[in-house]
């Protein structure tokens, strides 16, 4: 592809300009958490005059943050695993076979995204009560798995369809069963799609606060967003503390992302189908 002389510089300026817009508010949030409220109002853009961790210490003293963190981790890891397993099985079936009901099945899965799940909260609450799941992490795990399936099936089906049929045929002639084909042939090639689903669902279940608000009343079973929310009420006027709270709620996710991103991004750039 031919480039005119300005194409590349333009690419750079454009890409990095947008990146700065993406980053700046997050930076602002972290910087503001070190400021006093008065400082935030008088000079919202400036660097904080002094760095003190006092606000953070104060916040952490009031809540069992480690317990929240543990709960969030358990809930997110288990639901993401369940989503990956169930959705790739379902997407494999929909994308790689042509039973005449497949389109309907695909659409059936999509339907879950088309209604506000809050609509069903009363029947859900009764269901959880009957299953004895109220006030357990299982209630959250099942909810995140169930609500995560539609979008995951959509993404995985879309990408599974792009795979050439030859690879699969070869394995089939070798006598491989469906499960083996999915595991050994399809999934390894679909790392970018799986990675995308994984990170998306992890974020989703990590950040949700609606279901824990409704299903969890036990302090020791709360997840990070809900636990932090109860602090927000107390500090609605103290913006410095508010920003510290926002940063605390977001930090674990950001750190996790940086740890996992190398792995994850590598998977992406290696590409699937050459």
């Amino acid at each position, binding site marked *: 592809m031919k480039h005119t002389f300005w194409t590349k510089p333009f690419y750079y300026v454009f890409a990095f300009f947008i990146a700065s817009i993406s980053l700046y508010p997050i930076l602002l949030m972290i910087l503001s958490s070190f400021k006093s409220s008065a400082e935030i109002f008088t000079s919202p853009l400036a660097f904080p005059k002094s760095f003190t961790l006092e606000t953070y210490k104060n916040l952490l003293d009031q809540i069992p943050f480690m317990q929240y963190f543990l709960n969030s981790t358990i809930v997110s890891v*288990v639901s993401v695993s369940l989503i990956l397993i169930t959705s790739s099985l379902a997407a494999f079936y929909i994308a790689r076979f042509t039973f005449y009901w497949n389109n309907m099945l695909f659409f059936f899965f999509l339907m879950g995204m088309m209604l506000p799940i809050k609509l069903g909260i009363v029947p859900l609450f009764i269901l959880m009560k009957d299953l004895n799941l109220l006030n357990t992490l299982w209630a959250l795990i099942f909810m995140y798995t169930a609500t995560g399936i539609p979008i995951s099936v959509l993404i995985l089906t879309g990408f599974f369809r792009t795979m050439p049929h030859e690879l699969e045929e070869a394995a089939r002639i070798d006598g491989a069963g469906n499960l083996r084909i999915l595991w050994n042939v399809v999934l390894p090639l679909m*790392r970018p799609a799986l990675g995308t689903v994984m990170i998306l669902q992890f974020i989703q279940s990590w950040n949700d606060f609606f279901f824990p608000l409704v299903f969890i009343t036990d302090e020791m079973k709360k997840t990070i967003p809900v636990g932090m929310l109860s602090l927000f009420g107390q500090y609605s006027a103290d913006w410095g503390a508010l920003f510290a709270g926002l940063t605390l709620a977001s930090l674990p996710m950001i750190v996790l992302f940086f740890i996992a991103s190398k792995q994850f991004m590598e998977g992406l750039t290696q590409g699937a189908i050459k």
Partner: protein
Amino acid sequence: MKSLKAFTFIALLAFVFILSACSSDSEAGGEGNGEEASEDTIKLTMGSWRTEDKESYQKVIDKFQEENPNIEIEFKPSKNTEYNTILNTALKSGEGPDIIHLRPYAPGIELADNGYLEPIDDLEGLDKFPESSLAASKGSDGKQYGVPLNISTTQIFYNKKIFEELNLEEPQTWEEFMEINKTLKEEGYTPLSLGTKEGWLLSLAHGMIGPAHYGANEFVDNITAGETSFTSDKFVNSIKAMDELKPYMPENYEGLGMEDIRTMFFTGDSAMFPMGSWEIEVLREMNPDLELDFFPMPSAVGKEPTVTTWVDGSYAINANSENKEAAKKFLQFMTTEEFGTMFTEEFKMISAIPGIESEDQLVNDLGKAADENSTPYMVLVHFAGGNPSTKTTIETELQGMYLGERTPEQVAEAVQKNAESWYKPLQK
């Protein structure tokens, strides 16, 4: 192959976590059994939207337990904006806390009318409260369902320092009030800290400014009897008065919410703050040097200046509770002077129990002013029903007026139309 490893790793992790999740569940079960062992203790839960009062409630509960060692109460507040959703969901499913913090007037009464609450007419100590306070949680069937907790008032807070500097006095009439606004503006201050971004601020402000123009309680009596309407001159004038204040509101007022107008006031940018009594503590905390005082809203029609008051919450008992008797004991405790005094001191709010003095001069003065000449927060007390509620309608319409989309007459008309759709006395 790398991905396979990763996948196995994840599956393994999942397994480990499922195990740990299970074990922590069973631990919790064990705990529960342990507690059941001490048989006589009755455990109650208490729901509320006041996450910020957790510590204060704990003190109240501790006090209660001194006399009732066999009743344990756990205060479990949830986020203000989701409280109704959470509570309604639980109640509909036959669950929910034993002791329920009720929203005042229509929304709380709706719960009573739907049969989710236990009537408490026989509760000792209820007779202390004036009828107007009990009305906040009286069911349509005439039974009492809640113990009123606190009275909120609205009035104009002002910055004493600025007033002294400019030699301003507390106004006695609407004209004097407008004169003060003018002077403040000329001297470079923002006279009134009021924004229109959040609708509730507008109905709150109208609850203060309105009575000065429609003539306070007389009008309220008339309209609740269906003898006048929202399109009457008196009410339209009250909306026009809101419009007249426009020049004295901050620049960009359409984008300002609660936090912004509060900040403008405690930093001394603005001189007057039409707001509720619950803000006193916040203002002091944000700026301990602020010289804070208040004045009641002066009348434009030759009446006494008024403080707007209403009951801001009540406590009720879940009809599905297994320990109603124990819950009643706590509610009874909430009617005692012991509780009232403690509440005023700890929460820095005005107790709904009459005659409780506060050590805080400002809160005390406010309570007195409210006793002397109060008028109800009309749209909340009488017109919070309907869907959308009349209260919501006036909020939205006033917002429209400040954005230049509506005239005061149109606002009044929309309010009348909405009220007619559900309020019986106006349906003729």
